[in-house]
């Protein structure tokens, strides 16, 4: 369980951005979370509450935008969503492919704040 470390890194990154913006209250942090990021959504939300306690982010929400895994199918020559994270193959023609295009994201997309 490393979601607490991740939550602390999110707060650190958000605090830097707030400083760049010259301060202001943050209502929400928007996060892109890929299915292959290795981070569990529920555990992260729980950890975020713990980590933000007693900080300027205490009242803020962590809004998570889950990013499904998208692979490149060499047969169809197209990007395809995986139908299951247990099966890395094209959802249309079934060709196995290790070529991950999206789904590893662990990224602060934006801050909802007063500026």
């Amino acid at each position, binding site marked *: *369980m*490393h979601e607490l*470390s*991740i939550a602390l*890194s*999110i707060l650190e*990154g*958000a605090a830097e*951005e707030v400083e760049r*913006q010259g301060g202001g*209250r943050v*209502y929400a942090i*928007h*996060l892109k979370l890929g299915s*292959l*990021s*290795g*981070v569990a959504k529920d555990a992260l939300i729980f950890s975020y509450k713990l980590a933000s306690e007693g900080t300027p982010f205490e009242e803020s929400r962590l809004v998570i935008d889950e990013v499904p895994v998208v692979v490149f199918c060499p047969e169809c020559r197209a990007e395809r969503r995986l139908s299951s*994270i*247990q*099966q*890395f*193959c094209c959802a249309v023609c079934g060709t*196995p*492919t*290790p070529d*991950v295009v999206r789904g590893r994201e*662990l*990224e*602060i*997309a*934006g*801050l*909802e*704040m*007063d*500026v």
Partner: protein
Amino acid sequence: MTAQPRIVEVRQKVLRRNDVLAGELRDRFREAGVYVVSLVSSPGSGKTAFLEKILTMMGRQARIAALVGDLATDNDAVRLARAGVPVRQIVTGTVCHLDAVMVQSALEGWKLAELDYLFIENVGNLVCPSSYDLGENLRVVLMSVTEGEDKPLKYPTIFNGADIAVVTKIDIAAAVEFDWNAARANIQAVRPEMEIFRVSARSGEGLTEWLASVESRRAAKNRPG
């Protein structure tokens, strides 16, 4: 009237600091000509026994060193040091994975240019290490025959993020009715085309083949152009 909050676009990786440092480590490793191999697996799958054998086999023909991560104790470093190569223990305390900062600090004082290979044994954990780049050239995921053939399906992220897979304790495969074909199919379902080795640290089976593969990967990397 209060202003409506607005969305400030950030688009910043949460683990940016780790990624930047891992990139710097990778550059340092390249300049020093050292090939870095990391090992990840669940606790008890035989990383240390495997590495102990590998270090002993390589010790005579290459300059090697190892870092080993654990939550507590330096037992594994003591075991690995028996192979006669420099070993350093990283005690992570409560942290369930290694990160680039820990690797950087552990390397302090070592002359990387005097090494051909550096091995990094991660904390036994199939979840958390997947998020952290350590600057390694090759990430090896291990699973033992006692863990069940469906391990890759339960932990697809770590298997998908690795470069090669090693199935350990193959000498007792029959006793635990391990189904090799099912295990191979499951590994390749979450990571198509991944090279897989079957090894036993006890009997020595498969270790030479694994080493040959790592050596050829290193040679390919060092080839100019």
